[in-house]
């Protein structure tokens, strides 16, 4: 069994607290993505699980075992990092065989050959087996690194930003491959990234990490549509969710000089959250804004516009024609508007 559990993990580096009372459960066979910015503690959490870092307090459980006293090798988890850490002088085959020839693992030669063959087929690299690693492209190298992790057939994979160093096209195809690999192996994946697209596109569950604490755990849809607070709301989606301070009254959002309908009820000061795709440019709408910038992304345009002192981003159809500094009118989709507490940032629908 390969359930991962962290209970009350604390870890400091000098005066800096990297992890604060971190509780985390990754179920057996789950693809769990830990999403956070640089310094949020995601790599530290991964290293604590791998046994490369000792926590100051708290428990690490793998399956039913408390592995606090176990070495990294004893934990038998596979680690894939952003840097490939392959042996440049060995062939791909040599690199894949290497973990199987370790002194603490005794594999017969036919067993080694069979496992290397199987890993190579899974990753579609059989044609590269006899090539020197230094002659591979970045994507091929990362595939070999993953191959080196899977030959041992571990039940837990820990991956630290393995796609970050690759170009956009390759990242896209490896995302799909990793998901396929996960379902083929049936193993538990814990994947760490700062890239919200990777988190949204691959995860069964996303955990959003902020300053060493887990803020929310949920499916990609939970995180995107029902964020617990403004931090989570702005950590997924591109451009990030717009936040507009205003007042909620009689089913209307009272903003700087105009009102827009909302579904929420109540009577109070509110920070309204609206995703860029839920803002609508419409000559008859109540809101007025001045266009600051237009980005043509081909499939859509991203319009940055100023309303009073607030800059909003709207995703509009590619055929939309607007000019810089033009004054436009806009509304929004009332049923897609979130409301947050202006002081705490908490989602008012969930309080």
């Amino acid at each position, binding site marked *: 069994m390969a359930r991962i559990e962290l209970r009350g993990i604390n870890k400091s580096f000098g005066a800096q607290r990297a992890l604060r009372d971190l509780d985390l459960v990754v179920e057996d066979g789950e693809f769990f993505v830990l999403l956070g910015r640089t310094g949020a503690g995601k790599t530290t959490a991964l290293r604590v699980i791998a046994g490369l870092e000792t926590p100051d307090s708290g428990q690490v459980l793998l399956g039913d075992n408390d592995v606090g006293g176990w070495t990294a090798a004893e934990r038998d988890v596979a680690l894939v990092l952003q840097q490939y850490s392959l042996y440049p002088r060995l062939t791909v085959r040599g690199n894949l065989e290497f973990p199987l020839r370790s002194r603490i693992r005794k594999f017969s030669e036919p067993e080694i050959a069979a496992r290397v063959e199987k890993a190579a087929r899974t990753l579609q690299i059989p044609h590269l087996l006899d090539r020197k690693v230094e002659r591979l492209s970045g994507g091929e190298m990362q595939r070999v690194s993953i191959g080196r992790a899977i030959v041992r057939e571990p039940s837990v994979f820990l991956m630290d930003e393995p796609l970050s160093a690759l*170009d*956009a*096209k390759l990242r*896209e195809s490896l*995302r*799909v491959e990793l*998901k*396929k690999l996960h*379902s083929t192996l049936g193993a538990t994946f814990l994947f760490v990234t700062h890239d919200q*697209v990777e988190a*949204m*596109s*691959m995860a069964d569950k996303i955990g959003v990490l902020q300053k060493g604490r887990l803020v929310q755990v949920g499916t*990609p*849809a939970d995180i*995107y*549509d029902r964020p617990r607070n403004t931090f989570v709301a702005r950590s*997924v*989606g591109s*451009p*990030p969710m717009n936040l507009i301070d205003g007042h909620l009254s009689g089913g209307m959002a009272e903003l700087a000089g105009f009102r827009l309908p909302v579904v929420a009820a109540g009577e109070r000061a509110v920070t309204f959250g609206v*995703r*860029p*795709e839920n803002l609508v440019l419409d000559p008859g709408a109540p809101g007025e804004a001045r266009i*600051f*910038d237009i*980005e*043509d*992304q*081909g*499939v859509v345009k*991203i319009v*940055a516009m100023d309303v009073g002192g607030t800059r909003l981003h709207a*995703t509009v159809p590619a055929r939309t024609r607007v000019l*810089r500094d033009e004054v436009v009118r806009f509304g929004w989709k009332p049923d897609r508007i979130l409301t947050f507490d202006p002081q705490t940032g908490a989602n008012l629908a969930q309080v």
Partner: protein
Amino acid sequence: MARIELRNIQKFFGAVQVLKDVNLTIDDGEFVVMLGQSGCGKTTTLRAIAGLETVTSGTIAIDGREVQGLRAADRDIAFVFQSFSLYPHMTVQENIAFPLRAVGMSQTDRDAAVTEVAKVLGIERFLHRKPSALSGGDMQRVAIGRALVRRPKALLMDEPIGALDAKLREQMRAEIKRLHIARASTSVYVTHDQIEAMSLADRIVVMHAGLLQQVGTPEEVYNRPANLFVAQFVGSPVMNVADVVVEGGAGAVVLGFGQGQGIPLDGGHVGHLPRRPVKLGIRPEAVILAHGPGEGLVETQTTNIEPLGSHDIVDVRLGDATLRARAEPGFAGDGQRVWVGLDAERAHFFDGATGMALRRTA
């Protein structure tokens, strides 16, 4: 302000040819983005314009005057790099004023010029700080200020925001664009990031292996890619490319994807294609997905889904190909029955051997 002309530029580093007959005219006041992977020759081209690199042959003219023999300092061009290269012991004010001191401008004129450029960049309140006290974005603003202060004929930028985080990059893109509009300076900007290119450029120059692949507006490059390389370099997710065969006669034809699966199309869209395998290029937003049968749709199965919140990317199997579709939320990932079609107006075809676009002669 300047018009920059490159004529038949060749550049060798030893035996390696990094620029192959580059011809390009950048108009006065234009914002041109050179887009390509690392090693494609885009930075070498920029450095050749600046005079930081010699060319093996060919001419570079600025406002009609050939400059390929001139030193960088004599070309009156400013340069901004990814690394900020500010003087750490000088204040922001002194850093920006530095190029003006070098040309012997008076203190009063210098102060006026620095204040003006600082205002445009929104860094007036930092003028007395040292660079080490600034954030990455502000440091790059100072570097841009220093480049602009002496009103150069042209501003050349090499991945100037590549080292900044995503949020700041987005903000700086808009600022650089507005600054360009305000100053009307001829700008050449190098990047590997297609979103930067799409959002900043009047014209994009796509480079690959030392050759210009296409020169055009962002809309042209996105909607009428000249070849497979351009088609797959611009746009996210990447444009689908599949080997197809045109089957059937005049009128209704079928685009065969192998394994007996194909999509019916109006013959008018493919009448110009040769009767041999070609490559279809279709962007995810032009792949139509439906929950039920309909005209021009064929039944298939999903193989993967990427729920991105605002929309989903759904992969479907069609013959030997996997097509990615940009779809509204509502499809499931694995093995769901769906019906797929193509928006033929937005289908591109490329020669299988050369990768060049096969267009209807219009």
